[in-house]
């Protein structure tokens, strides 16, 4: 069972501002039945641009209902400029916290608010011009980027918790990780040399591709400088079986080359678990 705060339970059991404003000035709809949660936010704005009334309708779990209700409480009485500064963090804070896996409920609140403000102003949302990354939940690159930056996310699991992206068929995991890596590097939070350590476990196909790439791009040119060479024979689990060619094949120090250079390079670029072994090619 989820550990919900008393405030989450209170706002779930006695939600404030339930309903639909018929002649609303702003309407925001996010989510769907297929996704398992959906929120419709409506609000009224007075002549001074202040939100005077807000109502919500939510299909979803306790976190989704509580987050939606909290959102309406947060925005009533605020100007649109003030309201658009509200993020999912404010919703979580208002509720005294949410389980990590339920963070996407607070993000849904933030997105509904953005959509309703855009609707009021007759603007398009930035996400509408962004490419969909997760087909299962219709999550765009823009949404993923924003969630990473706003919540300082550093792992794929966190991105799924906050946005749902990657929580279905998982075929978008590689793309999400690439987005995460790019943003972390752009924001100076990760150096390229940390890439290998940050990687998730590789599939066999990914491992083979990366080993081949590293051999071709980094290792072979270095060995060729001394007239040597290396060929990939096979990959069995984490064992990389290679045969040495050219001057490396007869070099007395070939084992040092294999361990100190080839193995270290492959561990750096592919996986810390790799062990390089020489076999007769």
């Amino acid at each position, binding site marked *: 069972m989820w550990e919900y705060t008393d405030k989450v339970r209170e706002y779930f059991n006695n939600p404030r501002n339930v309903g*639909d404003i018929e002649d609303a000035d702003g309407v925001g709809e996010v989510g769907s039945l297929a996704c398992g949660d959906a929120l419709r936010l409506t609000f009224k704005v007075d002549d001074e641009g202040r939100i005077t009334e807000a109502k919500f309708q*939510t299909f979803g779990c306790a*976190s989704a209902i509580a987050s939606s209700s909290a959102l309406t409480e947060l925005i009533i009485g605020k100007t649109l400029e003030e309201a658009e500064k509200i993020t999912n963090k404010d919703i979580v804070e208002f509720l005294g916290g949410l389980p990590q896996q339920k963070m996407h409920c607070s993000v849904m609140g933030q997105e509904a608010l953005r959509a309703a403000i855009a609707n009021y102003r007759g603007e398009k949302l930035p996400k509408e011009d962004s490419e969909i990354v997760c087909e299962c939940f219709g999550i765009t690159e823009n949404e993923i980027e924003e969630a990473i930056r706003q919540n300082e996310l550093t792992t794929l699991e966190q991105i799924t918790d906050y946005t*749902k992206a990657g929580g279905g068929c998982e075929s978008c995991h590689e793309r999400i990780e690439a987005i995460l890596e790019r943003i972390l590097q752009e924001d100076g939070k990760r150096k390229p040399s940390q890439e290998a350590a940050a990687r998730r476990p590789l599939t066999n196909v990914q491992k083979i591709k990366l080993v081949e790439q590293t051999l071709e791009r980094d290792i072979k040119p270095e060995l060729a400088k001394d007239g040597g060479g290396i060929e990939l024979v096979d990959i069995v689990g984490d064992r990389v079986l290679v045969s040495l060619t050219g001057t490396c094949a007869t070099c007395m120090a070939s084992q040092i080359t294999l361990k100190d250079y080839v193995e270290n390079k492959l561990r750096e670029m592919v996986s810390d678990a790799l062990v390089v072994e020489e076999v007769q090619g």
Partner: protein
Amino acid sequence: MKLIYVDNNATTMVAPEVMAEMKPYFSELYGNPSSMHFFGGQVQRKIRQARERVAALIGAEPGEIIFTSCGTESDNTAIMSALEVNPTKDHLITTRVEHPAVKNVAAHLKRKGYSVTELPVDREGMISLEAVREAIMPNTALISIMWANNETGVLFPVEEIAELAKSRGVLFHTDAVQAAGKVPINLAASSIDMLSLSGHKLHGPKGIGVLYVRKGTPFAPFLIGGHQEGGRRGGTENVPAIVGLGKACELAAQRLPVEVERMRALRDKLEKGLLESIPHSLVNGHPEQRLPNTLSISFEYVEGESILLKLSDKGICASSGSACTSGSLEPSHVLRAMGVPFTAAHGSIRFSLSIYNSEEEMDYILEVMPPIIEQLRSISPFWKGGLTARSCTAS
């Protein structure tokens, strides 16, 4: 607050008689059954009695019973054993609606290069015998199909499938964790090669399971160690749990005809009452071929976790196949495999009864459920007085 426990497919209460019989084996009767002295000997005799009681419940011989730590271990053992004794065969047949104890083993084997056929189910959660027949290939090592589905209670024709498997020279295993104690099982009259069951699903303790292996079935142990269980499962026996399971099986055998029918009547009352009092509700699973204690019912346009929390506040413990309950983001693989639309899959609740439930409890659930659903629907953007408010992407 009164506790109304209707989540018995998750786990069951340990029967008082079971608890009483287990107790001495936690304290004064602590001998190791493998010991040569009289102190271990009396424990060994008690284990023998438990083995006989388990065998009697499922129509097996005591020598065909292997004690394990749980249903999951039994399932794993059955599958891994079948592959090990058939080194030239690399194909496994199962279904899309298995418990993770089989489903995830199959997925793991697939990643390791084995070929896996996951048979589909129809809208009522039933598999087709013809599909099983067509799936069998010369390299099929094992067919593993559950006896009863844990979410819907749908009963699969495992005895017929076992016959089919036998005629094609393929081993057959069934995960009977949900079926044991709720439906009659007579393995002597069937061709089932291996069967799994679990103590805590039939009012026994947690941490004890059984793998039945038909005499003469080639077998390779999963847990390799000492001579326990005739060398088929290493590790010192969990004596109190084995004793408890033995007693639980004895009780289940006594209660099967009468008590189970009473439980079915309660389940039927609950089902009928909910369908009549709550519009846009539907039962998931085959109308007849279903466990007598299980009701999987969906309430459209509301979400399962919300319903569960509201029920929990009333002292009612049930479960849901909704995404939000599990920590996954998608509704239950069982309901999706059945083609249950999203409008209903996210709002599914499973009530699973035991012989300890009463008619008063069913009346109470029937009293509190309609207002809960009504309140949650009043919040839902998809609900307007029985009509969907707007279109959605539900399949």
